[in-house]
């Protein structure tokens, strides 16, 4: 552990964990892959640098689906077994930031870092009952994070409380010349307005997601609880509809993520593909077979969908909708593990780039966490956190912890 000297810093002495696709100098970063077992970076990820400057203490690296990607397929063939859900240890956490979700819920880290290409922060946050923020694309540097998909990857904080989330975001946000996607905007004070409440705000509520698949009753009850509380506190909540059902956004990522992933890891696949687990190997096979025409078409379609989504989001202070449509599922039924990951409304906001928070809304009858998703205008994470904090402080969900 590093010695702490000098003035007290914003995260002085706060212990945290990082998903094991964040590079750590001198510390193996294998992203749960036998293909990377000897990978010891000689530099820290930009986020790790920033947290070090802020005084945080890296306790260790956290489990992930192989290479920080996947769809929740359970083959038990990666370097390490799946992380377990602290609320029920034979249940999945959601992924791909699996260990980040588990560690914060279990209290073994005060906060954790995750990275989100299609829901990899928000799914484990929903599964484990955290506050997990996928910030605006371009707010935080990805330098030194094993890439999965350059045009979608977004790192962010996974925390127990909204205040923690704001404090960590404060430390890690900002332009970095080493990541061409980061935007040179001033970083606002994410904590200053945190307790300002919601009186006078207008929040759009996606009551019907427009899918044939249903949102579980407990998740819906949690959403309705948020709506009722925000209204009670003086917000106006109006029903809105997404431009398209969430699954239509997900379809694009097959091409975008698949092709970029295969590009990123082409050499690894050719040289060490035999060491990879089945899910990653087959994802790379598929991405390698994509047509260039279809990839570029997907990126053109993405622009259209981002514009139409922004036309909705920009009209409100935030949009409330489901995150995961159900609670975490048992490993004993791999189809259900995939179902937990697949039944969600997360990917739409990777496609659009808007900030999206998986927020805790309570627990179902079996004691598993339920959650909602709060989406804000571009680079207005402060508003998302402010609204989520208004709900958080009205309930005592944060006082409940898993029995380990």
């Amino acid at each position: 552990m590093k010695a702490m000297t000098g003035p007290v810093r914003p995260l002085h002495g706060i212990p945290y964990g990082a998903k094991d696709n964040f590079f750590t100098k001198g510390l193996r970063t294998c992203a749960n892959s036998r293909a990377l077992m000897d990978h010891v970076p000689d530099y820290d990820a930009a986020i790790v640098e920033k947290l070090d400057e802020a005084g945080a203490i890296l306790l260790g690296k956290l489990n992930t689906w192989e290479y920080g990607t996947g769809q929740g397929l359970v083959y038990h063939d990666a370097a390490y077994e799946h992380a377990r859900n602290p609320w029920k240890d034979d249940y999945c956490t959601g992924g791909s930031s699996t260990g980040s979700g588990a560690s914060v819920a279990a209290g073994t880290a005060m906060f954790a870092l995750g990275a989100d290409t299609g829901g990899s922060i928000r799914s484990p946050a929903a599964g484990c009952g955290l506050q997990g923020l996928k910030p605006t694309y371009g707010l935080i540097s990805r330098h030194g994070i094993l890439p999965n998909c350059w045009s979608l990857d977004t790192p962010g904080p996974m925390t127990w409380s909204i205040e923690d989330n704001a404090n960590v975001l404060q430390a890690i946000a900002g332009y970095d010349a080493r990541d061409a996607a980061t935007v040179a905007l001033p970083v606002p004070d994410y904590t200053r307005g945190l307790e300002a409440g919601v009186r006078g705000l207008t929040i759009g509520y996606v009551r019907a997601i427009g899918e044939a698949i249903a949102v579980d009753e407990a998740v819906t009850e949690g959403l309705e609880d948020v709506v009722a509380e925000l209204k009670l506190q003086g917000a106006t909540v109006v029903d809105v509809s997404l431009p398209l059902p969430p699954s239509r956004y997900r379809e694009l990522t097959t091409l975008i993520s698949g092709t970029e992933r295969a590009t990123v890891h082409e050499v690894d696949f050719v040289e060490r593909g035999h060491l990879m687990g089945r899910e990653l190997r087959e994802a790379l096979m598929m991405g390698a077979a994509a047509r260039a025409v279809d990839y570029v078409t997907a990126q053109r379609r993405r622009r259209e969908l981002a514009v139409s989504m922004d036309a909705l989001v920009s009209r409100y202070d935030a949009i409330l909708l489901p995150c995961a449509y159900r609670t975490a599922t048992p490993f004993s039924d791999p189809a259900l593990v995939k179902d937990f990951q697949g039944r969600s409304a997360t990917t739409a906001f990777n496609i659009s780039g808007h900030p999206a928070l998986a927020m805790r809304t309570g627990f179902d009858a079996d004691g598993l966490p339920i959650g909602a998703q709060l989406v804000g205008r571009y680079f207005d994470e402060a508003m998302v956190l402010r609204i989520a904090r208004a709900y958080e402080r009205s309930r005592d969900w944060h006082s409940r912890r898993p029995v380990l």
Partner: protein
Amino acid sequence: MSDPTFTEAEATAFATRYGLNLPADQMATLAGKMAEIAKAGLAIPRPSTKFVMPAPVFRVNNG
């Protein structure tokens, strides 16, 4: 339009062309994945005008 399909021979030719060092028993899987992503690509609605540019992947630094 019917769904695209690929034979194991086509998968083998693809793997050889691009240097994918896959064992023979995975060629059927590769053929299936080739079909899956081809189908996904064909399913994307084409923009109505040629002036829809791809979403930006990178930006040019001012400095």
